[in-house]
């Protein structure tokens, strides 16, 4: 049976790994390559690298290649700046197994068909940042336009296409905090789709990790900043939640 995944997340700005706070403030952490090597050694189930400043420049191919050249044995997902099919192919050819699409989904949904034809649906994830207003209404946060949008129509269109294999739900306000992921987002998205969901933003509490993993639609959890605070943090998380739904930590050292 498929295991649910603990996914190590590296947020990158100007090709430097950063500690991000609600995608509004950043503190430098160091070279993304060093973090990726740590997460590989510590037994992450997947590593996702999100370049958050590539809107107009396209994906950071040099960075992807440099990560790939490390010879990591953990699956690697890249997101950031993918504008079209050509970008997506270059990301895969540079060494990522899967791609995260963000703006292109909302700006040019037909391009997603082309991407799926070449790299396959299984290699496509959609990033959906959400915020909850004071009145409880849940909205999509459009980073490129810096505005909140109704999510229902666009999301229905995306789901209908069936060209995405997993959704990354991002708690925009919770990202970088220790306040926990807003679980109302999962209920909201479940109204539209049965696609597997990955969650990201503010997830540090082990009780919440266990609760999130117990939800049927959740296929994995993205954890960012807090993994860098302690050596072997992923192993510690896996051991502490002791869930049969996740892959046990492997003993290091075949190479």
């Amino acid at each position, binding site marked *: *049976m*498929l*295991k*649910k*995944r603990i996914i190590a997340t590296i947020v990158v700005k100007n090709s430097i790994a950063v500690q991000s706070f609600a995608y509004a403030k950043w503190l430098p952490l160091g070279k993304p390559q060093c973090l990726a090597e740590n997460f*590989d050694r510590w*037994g992450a*189930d997947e590593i996702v690298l999100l370049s958050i400043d590539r809107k107009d420049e396209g994906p950071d191919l040099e960075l992807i*290649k440099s990560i*790939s*050249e*490390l*010879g*990591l*044995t*953990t*699956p*690697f997902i890249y997101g950031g700046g993918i504008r079209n099919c050509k970008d997506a*192919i270059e990301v*895969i*050819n*540079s*060494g*990522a*197994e*899967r791609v995260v699409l963000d703006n292109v989904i909302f700006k040019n949904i037909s391009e997603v068909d082309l991407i*799926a*034809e*070449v*790299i*396959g*649906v*299984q*290699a496509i994830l959609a990033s959906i940042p959400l915020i909850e207003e004071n009145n409880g209404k849940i909205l999509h946060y459009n980073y490129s336009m810096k505005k909140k949008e109704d999510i229902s129509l666009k999301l229905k269109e995306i789901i209908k296409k*069936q060209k995405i*294999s*997993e959704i990354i739900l991002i708690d925009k306000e919770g990202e970088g905090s220790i306040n926990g992921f807003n679980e109302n987002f999962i209920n909201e998205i479940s109204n539209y789709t049965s696609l*597997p969901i990955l969650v990201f933003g503010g997830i540090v509490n082990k009780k919440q990790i266990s609760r999130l993993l117990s939800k049927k639609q959740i*296929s*994995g959890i993205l954890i960012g900043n807090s993994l860098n605070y302690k050596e072997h943090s992923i192993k510690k998380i896996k051991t502490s939640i002791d869930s049969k739904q996740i*892959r046990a930590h*492997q*003993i*290091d*050292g*075949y*190479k």
Partner: protein
Amino acid sequence: MLIKNSVAIIDYGVGNHLSVLQTLRNLGYRAKISRDKNEIDKADVLVLPGVGAFPTAMHYLHKYDLVSYLKDAHKSRKPLIGICLGMQLFAEYSKEIELTEGLGLIPGSIEPIKEKKWHIGWNSIEASREDNIFKLSDNESMFFNHSYCYQGPKKFIFARSSLDQRNNSIVSAIRKGKTIGLQFHPEKSQQSGLALLDRIINEVIT
């Protein structure tokens, strides 16, 4: 480190070849990426990797005139390992996007995964026969990332992976002679994957 045998990774334009290259080098093999048949010929083992859709991959194999080359390699019992889409290309045909003829090295077809649209993440493999190299990796987790799967005669199926508790499963490894297909990514399956890949290469070389 003792330099082991040489491995050629077939470059057909689509796919994540760099990861496979680094993994093989880390395992001590002399590995290179190439679509030059003279270069590929010199290798002891051929690896056909793959991330992408079946019709696109076959299009590129035709474009680079690799279809008959791979068929001849299989016939002459040159060791050949297919990874993920690379394994699927060994089949006779695929129903992904449109009906597309494959390399036809191993009888069988590539079909949509029943009841599930995708099989993404870590799953254990179960060796389906006692006398095979997958037995040592029985119940070990490997990384899968696919939405279509192999269906074919039992005698070519060497490992399966469960999809649910209702006995639905997918084929995770196939073999005919020295041609071996892995539905999972051994190069991305940490220690378990590396150990199995090393074992497979050692076996097909001898």
